[in-house]
């Protein structure tokens, strides 16, 4: 090289490759881009490019170029290369076995990988940062490579040793602020969302130091100042002090600056709304502490798409093309004058509204639910509401409903909107057979939620059942030698097609026989038949707001006993009738997914009552009661046949037509407390009463509290109320209670909300109680429990779940039973 002058030009005669490399010279030369017969300049671009190209290949540890045999203006070129060593084995020390695989994958430490300096450095940095992020601030990572000796392969290979010393987890002992006068340390610490001091009772967030989070939190500190009017506040310095006890202290010096206030606020460009109207939404007045964060929120709140802010005021009233910009026009002293510049644009109207993706559901079922209609003013709130309501139909994947705005035309003031939907299965089939209750029980259940009744005779529509008209139809048959039940229900959500009057009907019939201990078969001479029919109509209301639903139903049940003695009556032969009217009011604005609501609430209040027969049927119920009380006082074994008959006759008269009223209330709230975590508090109450005390509270329609809440085989109008942690129906007397109340708090976390399956985990805390008499009722005397569970919803199976509950109180009549666990299997939706 000596004697080469920079800038001298030579013609390349020949190129050779030397050094320790496994690559063929031809490959190297071609790759370098140099050619024989070419002119090269010493220190020039061509050689430089060749070095760069080879270096970039990441295959060599050293690259040298030599000019050899220089004669006149020509030269030979020698490229001297040394291959990078390849990775042979990696040993990782200092972490658990399971983590090793993960580290290898994350850093791509595979056998045969070229070991560059870069690989070593990035691996080290990656691991150091990884553990620092988890609070191991003192993590030391060492990466050492050692050449493989006596290698049978000619390539150079190295073994790698990764030594990780995590050290102790470093906690933050204290966070101190310097120069803060206006805001206290405590307040500023609170503003830091992810960096927290050590504190005994901190459960949700640990006091670890993560540099990135800390940097974010410094911004939060400044934001805290900004929210309090200190617009110029800044962090001067931050330092970490390492304490002797493996903890650190953070010291943050701030400069607070002056406090600013809002000055005059002018609106410019508003013609639709007056200054006063806009002011009422803005809710910021002259003289208020300057708060930039709040100002931004009042103009457009990114977190709440349906919030009350200026943008929504315009967006929900047709001004799709509007823009709003706050501009600081003067900052005289500490007072900031604002001008809110509004460009309203033309009000936009929906031109065409379309739906796509409905290959099962018919148009009319969908279009009637959409609140944005042709010719209507554009409203963002209406779009949001439409998505919610389409999702709640249950025919579409609620997560996948997407509105697409098309052809927005600011000149004409029109836009089109297309709702894209994705059909999902909404039918369930249940076919079961098994042994239970002394014989074979077969069950057939069909439930279709998007049924099409008019196509029931159209054989082409059976794929596999006629669907698409939004009707629901359910059929259930269950039979064994001791009982047969049959139930059928149908509902049409828009009866008549003009208004959302939901018509529902249901029919049920059940028949059960006594067990004959002699033949061990059913005794057909002793039977109990129950037949029922219900007709209901419900309608959406527009007042007080349009989330309300009013429902009414008339139902009739007939109980027919033939030589069949039950705990319900004192007669074995006879009939009882239950004709009642139910009226209910519901307000439900839970959103978005009906299976996993993340917001809104659901209230319902209902009253069910029969006619007050005792007022007009001229039966002396007092006498009847006295008769039965007198006979009931005698132990059954000592009664004469005449007394038994008299009791039966009296009871038959009392229960010929059931007389009662029942009031129920239920409320659920859903709130998103953290990213995906949903909190669901709920409260419910029920009361069953009698008009006439001589007739008493009927043995039907009662509440049974405790357990999984699944209504099992019973058609006496009983209501089974879930209270986990206790055995089924253990919290009510055997005949059922007449008053109950329940409070529950549930925290839910979604594991997956995909279309195939929706899975979420939950923890709960609940309490409730039931009594037989309103006088004994105390809403705060609760049987409490807590636990956790899992729910899986699959369109074909419905909702399945399991809950584990631990009770804190004794089961009535079982002292010392508190503290035990109870497992519940949940089938079907629980509300």
């Amino acid at each position, binding site marked *: 090289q000596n004697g080469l002058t920079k800038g001298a030009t030579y013609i390349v005669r020949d190129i050779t490759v030397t050094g320790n490399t496994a690559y063929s010279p031809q490959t190297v030369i071609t790759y370098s881009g140099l050619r024989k017969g070419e002119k090269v300049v010493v220190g020039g671009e061509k050689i430089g490019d060749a070095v760069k190209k080879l270096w970039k290949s990441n295959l060599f540890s050293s690259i040298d170029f030599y000019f050899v045999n220089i004669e006149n203006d020509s030269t030979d070129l020698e490229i001297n290369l040394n291959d990078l060593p390849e990775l042979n084995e990696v040993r990782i020390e200092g972490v658990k076995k399971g983590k090793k695989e993960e580290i290898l994958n994350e850093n791509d430490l595979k056998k045969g990988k070229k070991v560059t300096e870069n690989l070593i450095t990035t691996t080290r940095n990656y691991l150091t940062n990884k553990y620092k992020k988890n609070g191991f601030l003192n993590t030391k990572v060492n990466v050492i490579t050692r050449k493989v000796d006596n290698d049978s392969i000619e390539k150079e290979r190295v073994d790698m040793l990764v030594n990780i010393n995590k050290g102790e987890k470093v906690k933050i002992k204290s966070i101190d602020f310097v120069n803060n006068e206006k805001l206290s340390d405590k307040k500023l610490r609170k503003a830091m969302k992810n960096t927290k001091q050590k504190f005994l009772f901190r459960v949700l967030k640990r006091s670890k130091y993560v540099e990135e989070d800390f940097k974010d939190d410094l911004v939060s500190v400044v934001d805290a100042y900004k929210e309090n009017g200190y617009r110029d506040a800044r962090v001067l310095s931050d330092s970490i002090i390492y304490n002797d006890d493996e903890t650190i202290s953070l010291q943050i010096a701030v400069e607070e600056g002056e406090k600013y206030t809002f000055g005059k606020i002018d609106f410019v460009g508003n013609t639709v709304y007056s200054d006063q109207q806009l002011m009422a939404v803005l809710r910021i007045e002259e003289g208020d502490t300057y708060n930039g964060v709040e100002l931004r929120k009042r103009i457009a709140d990114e977190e709440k798409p349906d919030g009350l802010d200026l943008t929504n005021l315009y967006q929900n009233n047709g001004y799709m093309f509007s823009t709003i910009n706050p501009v600081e026009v003067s900052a005289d002293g500490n007072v900031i004058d604002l001008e809110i510049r509004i460009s309203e644009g033309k009000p936009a109207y929906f*031109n*065409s509204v379309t*739906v*796509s*993706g*409905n*290959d*099962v*559901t*018919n*148009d*009319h079922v969908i*279009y*009637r639910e959409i609140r944005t*209609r*042709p*010719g*209507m003013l554009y409203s963002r709130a209406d779009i949001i509401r439409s998505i919610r309501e389409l999702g709640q139909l249950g025919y579409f994947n609620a997560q996948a409903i997407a509105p697409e705005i098309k052809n927005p035309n600011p000149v004409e003031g029109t836009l089109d909107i297309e709702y894209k939907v994705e059909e999902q299965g909404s039918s369930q089939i249940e076919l079961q057979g098994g042994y239970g209750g002394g014989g074979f029980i077969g069950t057939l259940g069909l439930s279709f939620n998007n049924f099409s009744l008019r196509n029931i005779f159209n054989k082409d529509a059976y794929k596999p059942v006629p669907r*698409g008209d939004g009707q629901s139809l359910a059929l259930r048959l269950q039979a064994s030698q001791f009982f047969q039940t049959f139930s059928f229900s149908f509902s049409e959500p*828009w009866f008549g*097609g*003009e*208004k959302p009057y939901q018509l529902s009907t249901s029919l049920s019939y059940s028949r059960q026989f006594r067990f004959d201990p002699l033949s061990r078969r059913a005794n057909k001479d002793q039977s109990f038949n129950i037949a029922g029919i219900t007709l209901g109509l419900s309608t959406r209301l527009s007042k007080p707001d349009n989330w309300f639903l009013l429902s009414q139903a008339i139902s009739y049940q007939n109980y027919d006993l033939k030589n069949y003695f039950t705990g319900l009556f004192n007669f074995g032969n006879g009939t009882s009738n239950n004709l009642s009217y139910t009226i209910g009011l519901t307000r439900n604005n839970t959103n978005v997914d009906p299976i996993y609501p993340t917001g809104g609430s659901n209230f319902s209040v209902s009253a069910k009552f029969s006619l007050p027969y005792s007022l007009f049927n001229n039966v002396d119920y007092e006498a009847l009661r006295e008769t039965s009380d007198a006979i009931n006082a005698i132990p059954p074994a000592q009664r004469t046949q005449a007394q038994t008959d008299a009791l039966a006759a009296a009871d038959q008269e009392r229960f010929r037509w059931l007389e009662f009223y029942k009031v129920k209330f239920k409320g659920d709230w859903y709130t998103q407390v953290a990213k995906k975590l949903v909190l669901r508090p709920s409260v419910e109450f029920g009361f069953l009463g009698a008009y006439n005390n001589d007739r008493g509270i009927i043995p039907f329609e009662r509440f049974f509290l405790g357990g999984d809440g699944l209504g099992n085989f019973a058609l006496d109008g009983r209501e089974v109320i879930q209270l986990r942690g206790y055995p089924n129906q253990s919290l009510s007397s055997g005949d059922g209670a007449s008053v109950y109340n329940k409070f529950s708090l549930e925290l839910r976390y979604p594991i997956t909300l995909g279309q195939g399956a929706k899975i979420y985990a939950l923890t709960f805390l609940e309490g409730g109680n039931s009594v037989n008499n309103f006088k004994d009722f105390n809403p705060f005397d609760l049987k409490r429990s807590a636990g956790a569970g899992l729910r899986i919803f699959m369109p074909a199976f419905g909702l399945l779940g399991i809950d584990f509950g631990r009770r804190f109180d004794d089961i009535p009549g079982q002292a010392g039973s508190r503290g035990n666990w109870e497992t519940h299997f949940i089938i079907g939706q629980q509300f």
Partner: protein
Amino acid sequence: CSDFQKALKSEDTAMKFKLGTEYYDAGKWNKAHRLFAQIVPNYAGKPQAEKLMYMYAMTSYNMEDYFTSGYRLERFVSSYPSSEKREEALFLSAKSYYELSPIFSKEQKETIEAQEKLQLFINAYPTSQYLPEANKMIKELDFKLEKKAFEIAKQYNTIRDYKASVKSFNNFLLDFPGATLREDALFYRLKAETNLATASIEALKEDRKEIGISYYNALVKSFPNTKYLDEANEMKAQLENLQIKEDSKK
């Protein structure tokens, strides 16, 4: 064991071809289809492949598996552009798409696809013997789209959103200039506007009445002998009465 079962299990492709052809000629599509499915890969590139592919696609068509037949016939057409069966195959592939088109009240993606395929056929064989049938199908598909838009607009009137109904009928009349349902659309537009005007606040009645009467005129002008004449006249009277009420108030 029947011949068919034996053939299914046999390795003899020539025999399968022969038997499959016999079944095909006898109209036993299902059996032919199963045999052909086994031997299609063996004949790829061979001279018999043209006939086999045609028959294979046709079995799907005859078994009313239009999704498959549309695709296979299309592939046949592109693989054998000089085949004498090309015209028929192209037509039947388009017809397969036509058969897939669902009822008007569901998504019409397939309907539009079928229209495009039929149009391509007509462009390729403007003098084809299948032309009348192709035209008939296109018309039918057109009507389906028309019916869809019409029924949606009409439903708005049923659920008492008269404004949306009027707007949708106006869009309908623009989107389907030569619509079969034009008369009905004009009438229902009048009906919706009449309902709208009747239910209006006083301030808007005048304008809506005017619009309603113009809709009446539009109907009667295009269809002087409309089947809705009586009803339309009634509505016109209703609209005019609206005016009298308002005048009497003044």
